């Protein structure tokens, strides 16, 4: 894997991930398409990569009072169960099919983001 390209990809992913824009999806594309890594391995790498990135951006966002902790605790509880089920589903499906499902998911999210309405901030 080319070190310079990897660093650029990781840098761009860090920007998008810290903004909550799902930057990890871009890193997975980079790892599978340009580095030939299997879909499941790329997802595993992204999960490890995301942890320190998320932690550092949370510190900043928390200082800026942008996180409603009380509201999101229930999400974290059910989310953890969902995460376990999703992880097992991924292993069961296997990389080749999972890669295509992932691409379909990217396409839907991409179209939704591109054509999303201009929204004014509510609060």
């Amino acid at each position, binding site marked *: 894997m080319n*070190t310079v390209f990897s*660093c650029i990809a*990781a*840098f*761009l992913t860090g*920007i998008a*991930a810290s*903004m*909550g*824009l*799902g930057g*990890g999806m*871009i*890193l*997975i*594309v980079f790892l*599978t*398409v340009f580095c030939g890594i299997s879909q*499941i*391995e790329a997802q*595993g790498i992204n*999960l*490890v*990569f*995301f*942890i*320190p*990135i*998320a932690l550092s*951006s*949370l510190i900043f966002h928390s200082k800026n009072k942008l996180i*409603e902790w009380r509201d*999101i605790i*229930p*999400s974290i*509880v*059910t*989310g*953890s169960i*969902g*995460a376990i*089920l999703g992880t097992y*589903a991924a292993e069961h*499906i296997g990389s080749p099919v999972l*890669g295509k499902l*992932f*691409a*379909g*998911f*990217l*396409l839907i*999210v*991409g179209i939704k*983001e*591109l054509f*999303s309405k*201009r929204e004014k*901030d*509510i*609060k």
Partner: protein
Amino acid sequence: MKKSYSLVIGSITGFINGIFGSGGGILAVPMLHKAGFEERKCHASSIAITLPLSLVSAFFYSAKGSIDWKTALPLIIPGLIGTLFGVFFLKKIPNTLLKRIFGIILIISSIRMLML
């Protein structure tokens, strides 16, 4: 936000983040927005939700030997530098512009992956 709605957000976000190793946050953002969260709070809170979920998923991926640590760890430093930029830009760039740019990147990526 209603507790039941928060539970639903978590279930969907967790499952998608587990199966695709990413993308939970991008689903959480519009759902938090529907709950009345301001745009920037949606993005920040989505990270607060996906971080613990990613920890859970990473643990299970690791247990199954699906994590290539040698590839993952060197990416973290440039990723953290990108994060600093991201935190700065989150305050400066209009949200709609961000969404459009990111949407285009995702569409191009998905077409590339579907053609492989």
